[in-house]
């Protein structure tokens, strides 16, 4: 794992808060990653439930618990759901989790937004581990936010959210709420929205 640590001059409270936020973003990034037994397991689902309980989201918690109870092979179920929602399925069924598809006008991948996103990562001292996937996948954007929070770069975090994240995520979320019938992904996307939207 890439370690994102805080500079030593931060006070204890903000250090803890930044670390929590970073962990939260990392957790949310995992929910948008293709399910793998390395992380997608019972402790992961337990943590998910704890988070929902802490937030006092009882109906979402109940939905997730029902799904867990009724789904014997949860990994297999999530893999099929993830493929359907984010990789390939009938139109409307799939919501590509790439910013450029939603922002660049002609539904393209690797558009101008992909380039701007990677520029942003690099300008903040980060880059992608692999060259084979576009930088503007939701998972990477959340991992980037985790990295920024981990270093308490809250200005960069806010700027990234404002300029590059929210404009497409809002569209993605809207489509997802129409299509994402699977409780795990529906709730995950609601959580991402909650932790990334501007506070009123």
């Amino acid at each position, binding site marked *: *794992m*890439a370690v*994102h640590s805080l500079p030593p001059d931060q006070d204890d409270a903000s250090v*803890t*808060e930044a*670390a*929590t936020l970073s*962990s*939260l973003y*990392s*957790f949310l990034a*995992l929910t948008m990653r*293709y399910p793998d037994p*390395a*992380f997608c397991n019972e*402790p*992961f689902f337990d*943590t998910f439930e*704890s*988070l929902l309980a*802490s*937030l*006092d*989201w009882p109906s*979402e918690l109940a939905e997730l618990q029902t799904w867990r109870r009724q789904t014997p092979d949860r990994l*297999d179920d999530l893999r*099929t759901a993830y*493929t*359907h929602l984010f*990789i*390939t*399925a009938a*139109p409307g069924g*799939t919501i*590509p989790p*790439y910013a450029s598809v939603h922002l660049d006008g*002609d*539904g*393209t*991948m*690797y558009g101008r937004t992909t380039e701007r996103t990677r*520029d942003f*990562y*690099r*300008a*903040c*001292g*980060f*880059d992608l*581990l692999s060259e084979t*996937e576009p930088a503007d996948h939701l*998972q*990477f954007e959340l*991992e980037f936010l985790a*990295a920024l929070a981990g270093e308490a770069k809250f200005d960069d975090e806010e700027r990234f959210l404002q300029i590059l994240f929210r404009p497409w995520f809002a569209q993605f979320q809207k489509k997802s709420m129409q299509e994402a019938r699977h409780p795990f992904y529906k709730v995950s996307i*609601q959580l991402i929205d*909650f932790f990334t*939207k501007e*506070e*009123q």
Partner: protein
Amino acid sequence: MAMNLTRRTFLKAASIAAASVPLANVRAKAESGLVKAPLVAPGSFKNTQTVVGGVCEMCFWRCQLVGKIRDGRLLKLEGNPKSIDNGVSICARGNAGVKLLYDPDRLKYPLKNVGKRGAPKWQRISWEEALDTCASKLKAVIDQYGIKGISMFPHGSTSTYPMDFFEKTVGTPNISEASFAQCRGARDTGYLATIDYPPSEEYADMPNSKVILLIGSHFGENIHVSHTKQYLKGLENGAKLIVVDPRYSASAAKSHIWVQIRPGTDTAWLLAIMNYLIQNKKYNIEFVKEHGEGLGKMAEGIKQWTLEKAAQECDVPAAQIKEVADLLAANMPHVAIHTGRHSSWYGNDFQRARSMACLTGLLGAFGVKGGFVPPANPGGLGDYSWPKSGHHDKTLQELAGLYHFAPPGTPPDLLRETAITGKPYPIKGCIIWGQNPIQTIPNQEKTIKTLEQMDFVMCVDVMPTDITMFADILLPDCSYLERYDLIRTGTQWNLAEEHRQFIAPRMPLVAPGFERKDSVYITNELAKRMGYGDKIPIQTQEEGINKMLAGVQLSIEKIKAEDGIHIQPGKDPYGDMELTIEFYNEELEEHGYPGIPTYIPVEHPPEGYYRLLYGRSSVHTFNRTQNNAWLMAENNINPVWLNDKQAAKLGLKEGDTVALINQDNVKSRTTTTVKVTPGIRQDCVYIYHGFGSRNPELTVGHDRGIDDQSLITKLAVDPESGSYGMRNNFVKLVKVG
């Protein structure tokens, strides 16, 4: 959800109670996709590079490309300025390759179908699982049914390597290439049976022709850059253009003589021209004396084809047939009788191709300026191949005693029939590689039945297509912009100019995205798992290209240093081709086919129906470009061309929405609009082929326009070659809404 909690207040609370939500423990289980990197100031990596070595595959012509790349991202495609073929020009489709590369609907990862064939539900799986599954399932078929239990439908350069593996090393005879039975098979075999030399659409020396004769070819709608340059240069140089087409095509619009022929009767028209030339001694007597065999038998056999008889059969004026014949005779031998390419039209196409070759011979137009001239392409490239296993069964056509002039491989009609009936043997495993048999083979129901009875179906493709819906395992291929896989060779586009040759291997312009793999990798991994690991001829695509280039003392590195194309002095392509023109072919007669070119009449449309004709849109390559956002922005539907008088009779007007119903009562799944025009005969209608894909995974192309193939249910198979005739179906128009 409770909304009284904000992110800020939650974070504060959660910080205190961090232990109750063990986020950090979970987070530690997976590596982040992001790493620390040196700070890069904005703008410091903005250099756009020109990457050389691209060879287009938006169609089969393979123009040479360069890519404008920034930070690994392809921004733009252009013609390679060094090209002596397409030059700096590329067509609309070539430009739109960027959209194929980055199409969000493209296949990205190996997929397993956890739903049903035809109604798939996909799950992403690892390459290990995908390859293990494919190999074990194929092996299980071989173990139970023998090697001939395996079938393959390959298409394009990506499938050459795996096709070799399955055909030579595994040894299955059940291989059906779309480019043959559904495209150029009848043309190739008709010419081979006449001049014993394979034809090509590249052999028409149009820039230097005095007369260009196009039978069904519609340049302008069919755009291949250097070919279009040749055609236009010919017209610019004063060539007379004769276009035989039931429709006022883009080429007909430029023609000096437009022969608005009755569909299916081209051979009768050609026989009448040849008969007239022979009877009036207006053919190239010297050439025929030297190169012809059996002219007397042909002359005797076709003498019934008077101008008047052909006029009646073809529904064109006798005077016009004479005018064409005289024009050809007056300008021989500098006449380009274009061979065409897609020729599987009416089930009598071998005879048409043979007639065209005979007419070229009568005019002495082989090897002369403006005639049928094979370019002197560079030779000497090295080779590599999968070894032959020694286990080779007879093909189905050999077993059935049919289609004696078909090349290796199996006509799909026999393959489907065998799979469905299990006779003479079961076919239970199917590999589909780059082909979309649903939209290329007539009678889709039979294709679906064929797939339904398989024990295992695997597909390898770039995009979801109609056929990928029927896969058990679906593997993502690299596109032509992400792989090495062939070497394009040729000469300068105008054969009369300074003789030069070029060698241009396809090299990737960008790295493969996601988990896409090339066909060498996929095939080798299958081979290892199926027990053929020791037979693998090359380990990588690069090794294959270098082996071929080594034959001419070149390498990938050298080609890169030469900006993607090696150019060397060429040879004069003109001169005696040392051909024999078999106006009468004894071997044909021995197999029970006519020894001389013969017209086989086709059925006329029943009352109230129109013959369904199809062709190309200038900005599409059939279903391969159906999801391309740029090309669909230009042309996203295939209007049905209907004669204006017939439109008035039916009460239809321009832009009306219609469905089509064919003679077997098959109704189009979707609708299209009507294009009312005097530019088409009254007995036929016309639409672009390749629209109306049934695959809902295609966000842009799904159900756009009508899938003409769905209406081609009545089969007509060319008796000599086994090619399909796909223009023998009839439709009526039903207004919708």
